[in-house]
């Protein structure tokens, strides 16, 4: 048996080449290579493309009149796109390596933390950019709160049901939140239905985001797909 057929992660060679050719010290180059390989293994470049697609959807929605007025109905499309970005972020927690990576990856928690926070920031930035120069109901503050909170739900579900299926929980929460929007619920746990300056809603969203990031940082997405030799579906 030879190692000729072993596949390398997409982009690994590119990253290696770029780092090796530069004047960086070996330790820094190694760290950067580790980060790059981790990003590639989590499909972060594709995730950024997905986030950009959601931002483009926001821009299109505002331009083509999918978001009209300031009522509950007008918040549905932005909420869906916010849930879409949260789903994409949650799915990046899926690891293709499982136990071997956990056993050897000393920097893994920091990498997970960095990816979760950076992607959430990128999602907020991209959606805000998509909504720029147009009147979005509830404004950018609501984007920050909703994306962070729903991403927290996605990260928590990644820790429970696995990263690959973690998109389901943000979708389910969105359905309930839409109902809360239409029915005028006042509980802060359905934060998309609350005004952007509502302190209780912001605290709830922040707590859920912090919990999601903490759990994913410490444990990562659940690896049951590998544990049972294939997983469902």
């Amino acid at each position, binding site marked *: 048996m030879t190692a000729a057929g072993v596949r390398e992660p997409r982009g690994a060679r590119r990253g290696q080449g770029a780092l090796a050719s530069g004047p960086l010290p070996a330790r820094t180059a190694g760290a950067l290579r580790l980060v790059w390989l981790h990003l590639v293994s989590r499909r972060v470049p594709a995730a950024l493309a997905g986030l950009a697609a959601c931002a483009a959807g926001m821009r299109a929605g505002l331009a083509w009149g999918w978001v009209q007025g300031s009522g509950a109905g007008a918040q549905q499309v932005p909420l869906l796109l916010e849930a879409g970005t949260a789903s994409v972020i949650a799915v990046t927690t899926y690891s293709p390596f499982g136990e071997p990576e956990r056993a050897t990856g000393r920097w893994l928690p920091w990498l997970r933390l960095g990816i979760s926070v950076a992607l959430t920031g990128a999602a907020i930035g991209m959606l805000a950019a998509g909504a720029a120069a147009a009147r979005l109901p509830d404004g950018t503050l609501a984007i920050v709160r909703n994306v962070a909170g729903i991403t927290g739900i996605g990260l928590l579900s990644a820790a429970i049901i696995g990263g690959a299926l973690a998109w389901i929980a943000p979708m389910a929460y969105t*359905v309930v939140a839409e109902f809360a929007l239409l029915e005028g619920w006042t509980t802060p746990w359905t934060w998309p239905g609350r005004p952007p300056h509502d302190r209780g809603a912001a605290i709830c969203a922040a707590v859920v985001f912090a919990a999601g990031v903490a759990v994913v940082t410490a444990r990562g997405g659940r690896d049951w797909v590998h544990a049972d030799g294939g997983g469902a*579906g």
Partner: protein
Amino acid sequence: MTTASLSLRSRRRSWAGAGRLLRLEFRRSTMIWVLPLLAVAFWFDAYHFADANPPVWYLRASELPNHLLRDFSAFAAGVAAWTGTRDSRRRTLDMVMPTPRPGWARLGAAWAATTGWVLAAYLACVAVLYGVTAVQATWGGPPWWPVTVCAAGLVAVSAIGFLAGVLVPGRFTAPLTAVITLLLSSAIRSASPYAMLWPTTNASTTNTGGLPLTPSDAGVFHHYLPDLPIAQTMFLAGIGLAALGVLGLSRVAGGGRRLRAAAVVVTVAGLAAAGTAAGLTGTARQGAYGVVIPALHDAASDRPIPYPPACDHDGAVLVCMHPAYRAYLADVTGALGPVLREVAGLPGAPVRVDQAATDVLASATSGALSAEAGSVLGGSPPAFRFPMPSFPPGAAGHAQLAEDLQEDLMVAFVNDARLLPPGAQPAGGVPAQETVEWVLLQPFDPWAEQDVAAGPDSDTASPAVAAAARRFGALPAAARHSWLAAHLGALRAGRVSLGQLP
């Protein structure tokens, strides 16, 4: 043993194998784990909205495309896409490609299991909704077309999602498919008739003219028109079939020349069905009681449904409603009673009140208060005919119903300028009409000023109208009554100015 018996045994074994494969897929389907979420979505969304409606069959059934299909389609598409990525995700494609069973059948079994679970959950939710409605409804039976359309919609989105998973296998395929499906349901606000092909557009939005595509009392006074549901079912089934056909043509489906030929036939048949449905929908026009597609329209559907009215009395005035709304007869009689007593004895005062069908064309072109308004006072002896307005559930809803009915009756009695067709120039006596309406409604409607006398951009009446209302309202009831008896004709014709009011 003959060749024929061998062939029969082989065919039986093949079917048994297919059944076993399907059973395995059903037992291993990811959708099983999503069923509790579907139940939660149904309870929070579709069931609560349906329960808020009066127990009238079509009204309740309209929540199926509006909410249930919307929620379920996101999960159906997402989980189907996830299932479609399976071979790629597990890197088992090379192992399953050489198996004797064609890839199309293998993939089809996985898709069928996912779709089967979604449909089972959907039908269970329909059973709950219809079961509750059957207990509460006082007339009619369950409409099956909304159920059929939504089932076809779920099959279509599931097939498209599965195809997306097979063709573009990636970890982001499933979430993005789910989001796009939800966006499709929320964002389509097109004036094009082709937008009606997706059922949630039909249920949740209106077309260019601002008309509801189907009146809220469809299936009560007139038959629920199946024209659009037939076209929608044909379109969605065609799209689903075409997606499955394309699946058979994909590289991962494998198969020989015969299977590919069959896949081509299925794809073409699906596209033909979808194209035909789209062509038919392009000829659709808005009818008084729903969307009419000439090629699919049955003239028998236009005939009204006979019914024995449910009646009650308020003094000498008979109030009759459709038996489907029997539960609201006491509310309607109680709401109209004070207005009927106020105008009793005046020329043109109604001696009978009848609930009428909502005619979406007439109510929109008459310039009435809303698309559902269309109340008429006329005939000999005079009768007030009103379509049932929409109202929210609970005590607040009952109060709003009473307020709307009182206002409709008063507007019809005074022949308010709001009953004029759009573009018609009102006579100069509109402020006097508004003043009389306000004064007559004020004793039992605290919002009368805002509803009938306020300007378009204000919650209060103009100072001149307010002064005239104070003057007219200060008169004893008998004096007001005798002035109205003498001047009602001129007031209705718009020939009374504010200064001429006593």
